[in-house]
């Protein structure tokens, strides 16, 4: 068997097409996944440099780096906007969904490729086009200083008359089309291409996570597209959706944006949930505790995620009934997320735990997610949120719960699967150092922001009173440590490809039971051409 598989694969390796055909006209899920991962890494550098510029500016009271005039302050706002857009749309989503999703959903369900390989490629190239449009936005007519939420009237033609916001809008339109097509592709792949015997209730949890994420994308992104279209016509063609002077309603934008925006934060974190489940199970040498509960907890998070959006806009003047509803509905999300946290812990309980680097990242993820989840309970209360709204407390909350947690999930996935993707293992000591630097760095960076936010420091402002100086100074030191940790990741990447030890099909041994570990490392260009028979196998095996 092994020999025939070997020979079979060897034959295909001679069939790589030429450079342009392989990388620009690809219909191969692994190559497209690799392209996504590269774009995410490039975007992460750009988005990261923006955030370090922000932290450098905020290291001390007064203005350090930006000029003390409207242009300088606009530049600061553009950095905040660009950082948010890039990290959400061009780092986390491409890496998690486009990168790991493309690579491992077909491998894990035993399918030879995605359902629509050609459409898979336009998803990638539209994302690239969207990224270029966003970079143009940042460098034209002063850039968009609107924040990633693009609220009118700040984003209207009155306050951003240039082309920057229009480029931002069309960037999101194009990236949104990319994601909708990708979502359709994932749903059809998962529903239609599972190996014989792999029922829905036997899929690995990462595949479950991608399925639910894809449904959220499919239903949430078109609403953003509708809102963006209204903003575009308001700015350029004389409509008045968001202009109260003409009978419109600026709060409508906030509704449309957050009806998309809240599912969007689950789109970002659900794939990480899936990755963490695989890793915790692998390195505890146990199947995940409460498999079905884990799967349906994600489904519940996805459904409830559509009916809590207005907790992002408590300060717009809702009546008390509305605020009571959104407070209660938001709290409900704590139940399925609690199911997930405790099931991960129960999976580790009594397990034979190996603290490999992916597992270190998984445990760190659980820690960060719990911290962010607890502050989320605070912010869910509309009465409390009236005070916390637009403070650094909110910044600390969402960086813990979806920002850094998602990044840790990405690192966890990268260390877990790099052997499968490259055929080489990461360098052990360097990788552990990278983990500790990054983990300590982000905590030093974001933990003090709870306190400065508690004390009332507003977000998206480049200057602050001296009273906030100590917290901000510590925070900026944390940013420096995080920067070193990030740079070290690229060293790890280079050392892995240059000198990593070669690994076999399953470097993790007994605990790694999913199908991707049954094919060679690096995974051959075509896999699962003979469909695996999963009849009678336990869930996620």
């Amino acid at each position, binding site marked *: 068997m092994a020999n025939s598989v070997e020979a079979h694969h060897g034959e*295909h390796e001679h*069939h790589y097409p030429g450079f342009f055909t*392989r990388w620009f*006209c690809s*219909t191969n899920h692994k190559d497209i996944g690799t392209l996504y991962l590269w774009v995410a890494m490039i975007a992460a550098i750009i988005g990261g440099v923006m955030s370090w510029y922000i932290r450098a500016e905020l290291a001390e009271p007064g203005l350090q780096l930006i000029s003390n005039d409207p242009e300088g302050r606009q530049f600061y706002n553009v950095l905040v906007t660009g950082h948010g857009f890039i990290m959400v749309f061009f780092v986390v989503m491409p890496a998690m969904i486009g990168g790991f999703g493309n690579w491992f959903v077909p491998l894990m369900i035993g399918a*030879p*490729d995605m359902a*629509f390989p*050609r*459409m898979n*490629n336009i998803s*990638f*190239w*539209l994302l*690239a*086009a969207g990224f*270029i*449009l966003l970079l*143009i936005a940042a460098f034209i007519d002063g850039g968009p200083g609107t924040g990633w939420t693009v609220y009118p009237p700040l984003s209207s033609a009155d306050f951003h008359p*240039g082309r920057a916001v*229009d480029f931002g809008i*069309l*960037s999101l339109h194009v990236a949104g*089309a990319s994601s*909708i097509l990708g*979502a*359709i*592709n994932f749903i*059809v792949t998962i529903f*239609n*291409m599972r190996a014989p015997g792999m029922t829905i209730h036997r899929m690995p949890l990462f595949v479950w996570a991608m399925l639910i994420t894809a449904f959220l994308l*499919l*239903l949430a*992104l*078109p*609403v953003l*597209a*509708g*809102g963006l279209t*209204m903003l575009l*016509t*308001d*700015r*350029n*063609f*004389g*409509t*008045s*959706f968001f202009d109260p002077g003409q*009978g*419109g*309603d600026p*709060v*409508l934008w906030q*509704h*449309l944006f957050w009806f998309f925006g809240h599912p969007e934060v689950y789109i970002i974190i659900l794939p990480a949930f899936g990755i963490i489940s695989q890793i915790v199970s692998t390195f505890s040498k146990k199947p995940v505790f409460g498999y079905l509960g884990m799967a349906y907890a994600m489904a519940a998070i996805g459904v409830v995620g559509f009916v809590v959006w207005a907790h992002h806009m408590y300060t717009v003047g809702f009546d008390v009934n509305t605020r009571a509803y959104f407070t209660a509905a938001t709290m409900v999300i704590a139940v399925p997320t609690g199911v997930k946290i405790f099931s991960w812990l129960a999976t580790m309980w009594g397990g034979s735990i190996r603290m490999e680097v992916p597992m270190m990242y998984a445990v760190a993820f659980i820690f960060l997610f719990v911290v962010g989840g607890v502050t989320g309970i605070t912010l869910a209360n509309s009465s409390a949120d009236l005070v916390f709204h637009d403070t650094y407390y909110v910044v600390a909350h969402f960086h813990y719960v979806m920002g850094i947690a998602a990044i840790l999930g990405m690192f966890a996935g990268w260390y877990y699967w790099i052997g499968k993707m490259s055929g080489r293992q990461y360098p052990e000591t360097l990788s552990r150092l990278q983990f500790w630097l990054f983990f300590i760095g982000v905590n030093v960076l974001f933990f003090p922001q709870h306190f400065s936010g508690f004390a009332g420091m507003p977000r998206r402002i480049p200057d602050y009173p001296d009273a906030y100086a100590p917290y901000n100074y510590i925070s900026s030191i944390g940013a420096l440590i995080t920067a070193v940790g990030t740079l070290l990741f690229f060293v790890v990447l280079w050392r892995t490809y240059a000198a990593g030890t070669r690994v076999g099909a399953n470097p993790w041994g007994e605990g790694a039971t999913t199908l991707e570990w049954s094919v060679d490392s690096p995974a051959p260009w*075509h896999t*699962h*051409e*003979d469909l695996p028979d999963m009849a009678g196998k336990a869930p996620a095996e």
Partner: protein
Amino acid sequence: MVSSEKTHPYHMVNPSKWPFVGSVAAFVMATGGIWYMHEGPIWGFMLGLVIMLYVMYGWWRDVILEAENGLDHTDVVRHGLRMGMVLFIASEVMFFFAFFWAFFDATIPFLSRTAHEVWPPEGIIPFNTWTLPFLNTLILLTSGATVTYAHHAMMLGDHKRTATGLFWTVALGILFTGTQAYEYGHAAFGFTDGIYSSTFYLATGFHGFHVIVGTIFLIVCYFRVKKGHFTAENHVGFEAAAWYWHFVDVVWLFLFCAIYWWGSAGYVSPT
């Protein structure tokens, strides 16, 4: 890989230039569109559009060739294509959801503090619901019936009646678009006359655009029927077009009831 070697029912698609060229077209359209919106010429946008139409032609031509080679579109692949179309329509429903939200945000005080007490707002003379808008409702509902007639004929393998049903569906679709254009030309309110115009023109305008797309889709199916591309069991392209047409139909019913009917009920004629 040659398809005959395959041991699975899936379609391994050959490398294709269309996705990359299509993304270039989207980029050119976006940049050209912004140039045009900021007092530039329109040809940048038009250039992107031409490339995009070329990509759409080439890409779908490839899909039809793959469908006709008898190897690639297995039962499983066709099941996936149908599923994909249903999901695409679901995303389109959510796009219209946004425009209905805008409309109800402006008209129902429970939803918004800035909703209008009086709708249509003062100074707006809406269309009489039971003239052109109702005629268009009848036209579109009839086209829904003719496309269903075509579908039944298709399932009986009767290509002649399928073509006839499609012909009348396309004709009614074009009649609808023409009536809508005539209606726009005789509106008593302009595109930029406040929130009533914004919600009316964008909701009905995007619907009209979808009618045009659906009509083109049906025209393609008409010629594919004539060429004998479909069989009683195997007609995914036609099914997708029919589903799309029903979707366009249902959106119109909501538009008619909400925007034309309920949305003009508060109008009091000055005379």
